[in-house]
């Protein structure tokens, strides 16, 4: 056990998997000597050499596309896209190829590959550095989408993603990369993809969140607890395929639901979760499901960033509105 930040836990997972399995390799922009712009891949090149820690040319379609070829031919590539905002140039490769090779080859070429990318606001950098567009991947049949919210989860989920026989989009909340350190076991462990985690139990209302929204969702839950409202907070962890069972069980108990995500609202990830809950729990619901989300705009640059993103106050407001319906 040691105290690790999320970025260290991610680095830890990569070290473990590269040691354990010769077929695991890392590729992306600046992943070698530089160790990645967020330092997710530090010290890998020293240990595993430049052939397994591959500094790629500045070409996202190629990064995803060549990872596909590697996965077809016996490797388990972990591709890093520097920011989610640059992933779209690899969208054709992801949607038309990564997601479909198993199907297209009638099961012969499953692709055990991971595409990692930091997502969401938090570094106050230029345009394209604060995207939260996981829904573009969640809506692609054949992909899995995983988003951790703690250092512990990041390590376990990333190891699971690398071992997964299907392509996994692994989005990392950059605002949490170094926010705090927590105990992370030094050995290998996995966390099941497709299972949500109940981060806080409660009987009055359910909150679903993931990634960068988890700390504020929990803070909101603590806040309303002072006023006697016990919120159950579900960390979704996997966006696709998401854990509909845990969600519906919780809502069956609480009758109320707030969904929190950074992504824009319209046609965002919350819509599907809400719809599934309505389809399954309509008669249990005591109020309309509330969504607390980023707005339907271009993610603002540094100065307006805070206005756009969900925060504790917005969630608390939604909780009360839902409670009082």
């Amino acid at each position, binding site marked *: 056990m040691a105290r690790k930040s999320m970025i260290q836990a991610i680095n830890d997972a990569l070290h473990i998997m590269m040691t354990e399995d010769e077929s695991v*390799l890392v590729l992306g922009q600046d992943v070698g000597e530089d160790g990645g712009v967020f330092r997710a891949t530090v010290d890998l090149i020293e240990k595993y050499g430049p*052939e*397994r820690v*591959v500094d*790629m*040319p500045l*070409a996202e*379609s*190629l990064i*995803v*596309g*060549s*990872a*596909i*070829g*590697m*996965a*077809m*031919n*016996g*490797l388990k*590539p972990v591709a890093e896209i520097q920011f989610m905002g640059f992933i779209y140039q690899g969208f*054709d*490769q992801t949607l*038309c*190829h990564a997601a479909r*090779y*198993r*199907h*297209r*080859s*009638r*099961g*012969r*070429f*499953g692709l055990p590959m991971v595409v990692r990318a930091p997502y969401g606001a938090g570094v106050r950098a230029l345009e394209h550095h604060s995207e939260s567009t996981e829904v573009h991947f969640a809506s692609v*049949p*054949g992909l*899995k989408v995983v988003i951790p919210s703690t250092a512990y989860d990041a390590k376990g989920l990333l190891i699971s993603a690398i071992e*997964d*026989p*299907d392509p996994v989009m692994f989005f990392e909340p950059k605002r949490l990369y170094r926010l705090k350190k927590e105990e992370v076991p030094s050995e290998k462990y996995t966390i099941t993809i*497709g299972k949500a985690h109940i981060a806080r139990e409660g009987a009055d209302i359910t909150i679903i969140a993931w990634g960068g929204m988890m700390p504020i969702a929990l803070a909101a839950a603590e806040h309303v607890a002072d006023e006697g409202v016990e919120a159950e907070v579900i960390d979704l962890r996997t966006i696709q*395929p998401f854990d*509909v*069972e845990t969600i519906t069980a919780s809502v069956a108990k609480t009758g109320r639901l707030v969904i929190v995500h950074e992504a824009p609202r319209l046609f965002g990830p919350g819509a599907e979760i809400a719809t599934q809950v309505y389809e399954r729990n309509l008669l249990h619901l005591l109020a309309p499901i509330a969504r607390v989300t980023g707005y339907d705009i271009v993610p603002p640059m540094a100065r307006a960033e805070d206005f756009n993103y969900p925060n504790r106050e917005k969630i608390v407001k939604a909780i009360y509105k839902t409670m009082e319906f």
Partner: protein
Amino acid sequence: MKPKLIQILNEYGHANILQIEGISDELMLKMYRMMVLTRIWNGKALSLQRQGRMGTITSVHGQEAANIGMALPLEQTDWFLPSFRDQGVLFTLGVSLKDQLLFWGGYEQGMYIPEHLNIAPSCITVGSHLCHAAGVAYAAKLRKEKTVVLTNSGDGSTSEGDFHESLNMASLFQLPVVFVVQNNHWAISMPFERQSATETISEKAAAYNMESARVDGNDVFAVYKTVKKYVELAREKSQPALIELVTYRIGDHTTADDATRYRTKEVIDEWIKKDPIDRMKKFLVETHRWDEQQDKSLIDECMKQVEQAVKDYEAVGVIEPAEMFKYMYHEMPWHLKEEIDEVKALYKGEDA
């Protein structure tokens, strides 16, 4: 600088004798046989399409030498990443006539490639598979295998970003991959000179510091020998190459296309004179390796093979609806299970 066109067997069926040394008679006859078989299959598939017994299909007519010539240098452990006008390559490498009928006939199962063949499923999005090829080659090189990766794409693919990104990577990492581009002069209605700012495809290799060659793609000897040379360089020295095969699309782009809208019959006639099969037959007959009698039997035999494949194809029948869901993931997630149940409930009364 327009590179020289490599030719061994000219359109009159005359070959440069020195250049064909080392190509056994057996291999020559195999080349010829595969070209004929491919053309007969192609003709049959087109006619099935006209009768509504086949889906939309690309015609490989005229490109048989390019197809067969690029396939023959490969070894069993090598890889091939096809696009969609390479039926002849696939047949030569061991894909069955029937599976290709299934594929073009709208059956997903036609996309299955037997485990012993290192062939990717056909890539329909132009150029995307060149990135995959670079990755396959990277994996082979990492493991220090002596494996070569071959890709086929069309002249149109050279305009796509993926072409550029893949060639740059292959050269940077000196990957054992041979990019073959069949320049059949057309990308649907676009002639190559309106597709590309360069006169040739092979000269584009300069941007990647890569070896390249420009070959008469209707000359099976030249195609074979050039591809073989670069396949061996890739194998021995892990060196990539770009090979342009200059050929011609005799048919429409696909059965959904009507090429009379954008090109005249005259040009096609010019190219029919350069037919790869005709010239090979002339050569074989004139050099007493072949005669009309043998030719007739070969055609008969190919037709029979094709007829049998058609029979097998048409015997396959309907797809189970549940098949659609089968290969989306290694393990089926809940929502697909629910959807299968939905489908089963819907179609339970029917044959399907």
